[in-house]
């Protein structure tokens, strides 16, 4: 990074399975208006707009940023549209950060969204890939074998997934924007039907309508801002090919490399001790244990022990997804940006009822594709 970049505004919609009262443009504006208000800026202050969302087939609009240019306040500004599968919300925010880091832009608006009620996610996420048998089972059908492999490899007991799901819901109950907020017990989860073994209905992310917007700014702008900024200490997006012989889908190398990159550049040697909270992309319960290992918060095979001991709960050593995370709110394209935005809110000290005490450094993380795309940033109270 050529120069420091800060998050100076965070905005998100109320997330729900169907925001039928809003057009796609209205939905995006709900998040954008809140981010600008938060930053104390107006559209005319914005130098460039960076948009992200998952496959256009989800809404049936090709490159919707074109028709949204007006609603985004992008008329006569530079705009790019990012798409890196599930990680897109995070890689989009990182692309916006790069715009500011380049020195060419002072204030960049970035927004990510999905209005899943406009289409059918199970259809849109069941691609027919060349030379590959179609699963027609959505993302859950694709990722369930990864979870089974994790269980087989580590000997994790079967209650771990339900524990993660119940904890996420307990967290979401403290987040006024979350989609699913009704508390549920581990027993509730265990009694829900299996969709894709070992993933049960209540261990699965919902389909949500929602958007998230951030304002990224230079140091000069951040110092002028009305609020304490979150400084981006480091950020990176990595991807790996799918059909590499020996590729480890359970503990993907791209995730390990990306985590090493962002922790090293942030000066963090021991993330378990130096990160106070993390918002990580957990669309199916078991991924929380898997990513704790992949991110280097613990040794391989130890992720489920952290969950079993409750050390990742709200108020414990390293609260994971205090917002409730993807398991409770999943407007797909926005889900990654929500992770990065929630991490920023935690270091700004403005996460409301789900604020973690004493956060200095926070990690935001997302993944996508066949666990191939990873995008992360470390944000901090300090420059």
């Amino acid at each position: 990074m050529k120069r420091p970049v800060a998050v100076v505004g965070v905005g998100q919609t109320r997330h729900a399975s169907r925001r039928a009262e809003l057009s796609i443009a209205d939905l995006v504006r709900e998040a954008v208006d809140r981010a600008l208000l938060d930053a104390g800026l107006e559209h005319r202050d914005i130098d460039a707009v960076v948009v992200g969302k998952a496959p256009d087939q989800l809404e049936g609009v090709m490159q919707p940023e074109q028709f949204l240019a007006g609603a985004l306040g992008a008329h006569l500004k530079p705009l790019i549209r990012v798409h890196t599968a599930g990680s897109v919300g995070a890689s989009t925010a990182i692309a916006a950060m790069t715009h500011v880091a380049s020195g060419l832009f002072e204030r960049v608006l970035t927004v990510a969204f999905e209005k899943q009620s406009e289409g059918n996610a199970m259809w849109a996420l069941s691609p027919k890939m060349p030379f590959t048998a179609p699963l027609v089972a959505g993302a859950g059908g694709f990722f369930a074998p990864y979870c089974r492999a994790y269980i087989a490899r580590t000997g994790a007991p079967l209650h771990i997934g339900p524990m993660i799901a119940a904890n996420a819901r307990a967290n979401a109950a403290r987040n006024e924007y979350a989609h699913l907020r009704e508390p549920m017990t581990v027993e509730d989860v265990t009694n829900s039907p299996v969709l894709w073994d070992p993933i049960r209905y209540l261990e699965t992310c919902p389909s949500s309508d929602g958007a998230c917007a951030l304002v990224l700014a230079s140091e000069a702008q951040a110092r002028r801002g009305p609020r304490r900024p979150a400084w981006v200490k480091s950020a990176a997006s990595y991807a790996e090919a799918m059909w590499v012989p020996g590729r480890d889908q359970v503990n993907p190398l791209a995730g390990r490399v990306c985590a090493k990159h962002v922790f090293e550049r942030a000066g963090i040697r021991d993330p378990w001790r130096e990160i106070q909270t993390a918002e990580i992309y957990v669309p199916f319960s078991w991924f929380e244990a898997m990513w704790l290992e992949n991110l280097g918060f613990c040794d391989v095979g130890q992720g489920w022990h952290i969950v079993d001991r409750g050390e990742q709960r709200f108020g414990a050593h390293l609260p994971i997804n205090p917002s409730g995370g993807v398991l409770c709110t999943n407007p797909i394209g926005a889900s990654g940006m929500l992770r990065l935005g929630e991490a920023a809110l935690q270091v700004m000290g403005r996460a409301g009822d789900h604020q973690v005490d004493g956060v200095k450094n926070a990690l935001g993380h997302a993944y996508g594709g066949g666990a191939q795309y990873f995008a992360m940033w470390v944000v901090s109270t300090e420059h």
Partner: protein
Amino acid sequence: MSRLRNVAVVAFAQAPVVARDEHRMATEMLYPQVRRALADCGVERSAIDYQVAGSADYIDGRPFGFVGALEVMGSWPPTQDLHLEMDAAFAAHYAWIRMQAGDCDTALVCGHGKVSEGEPRRILNLELDPYYQAPIGLDPLATAALQASAFMARTGTTDRRLAEIAARNRAAGARNPDVQVRSSASADELARTPWAVEPLRTGYVPPLGESAVALVLAAEGKAERMCDRPAWIHGTDQRIELQTLGARDLSRSPSARLAAERALAMAGATSAADVDLVELSAATPVEELILCEALGIDADRSSPALNPSGGPLVGHPLMMTGLIRLGEAFRQLAGRAGDHAVAGARRAIAHATNGHCLQQNLFWVLGTERRWT
């Protein structure tokens, strides 16, 4: 303009544009171009520290079409990567921004997509506002015809003039082995072709085509070692404007005008007319005229040379057309344009667009010498 990092195009490879490659999927078309581009600049994939691609899921006819490109772009071990759902020229623009941020020194930029797998006229309808404009059934030919009507009404441009511009592009294309339409045609012949959508004739619009494109960017210090004649980026800028067709003066492109002004200012150039050639992503003769107006150049003059490659009229692979313009500018400045070379070319402008009726525009100003010293 403060000093920026000198960045150059150092390699370019393109699959010849064809109506349909029957035997290869998009990634199979792309892989040889990646290898050719790397061979062109004499490095292995490990020497490239960033990769970025441009494509569209709707063109691929499935979600996540771009994920397959990871297999052939060289994504093992894992690499820093991004994908834009846009013409790949915008991916190159983002790579340039990343180099300005100091985050990478070299970048592989790819464009891909099997246009022939779908029906682009129906697919591109879905780019329009889904509530008010897409349901009318407008397709890109219809919107281009609305734009042409508006332009002809404002300027008095005749059908004959459009035929002459198309004929010039056809004549140029006949000298370029990578284009789809390699036969020249006279203005008389083209003016007798039937309406595609009035006032645009079938002779004034490109056929559907597909390709695969790879381009390598490198910053000063590495560019010179990778290419004997790098094409240095002197200035670049991109802008979008409102889509709403009824709210725009379709006969003009304010986003193109602003992007051109900013790119030229960054390049320290006073006039676009001073360059030797211009490669425009103009899918119709009217778009060429609108872009010339935005650039402040006279389409009737012989200099700068307009679309010496033949331009999109002779080969228009969606999501790649813009990156091919940048690649063509490189070929001209690097002395690799073969039969369609503009003699002694030292400065060039390349343009890319996204959306209907030139909604979003990107300009590059390039030269054989470094911009900042």
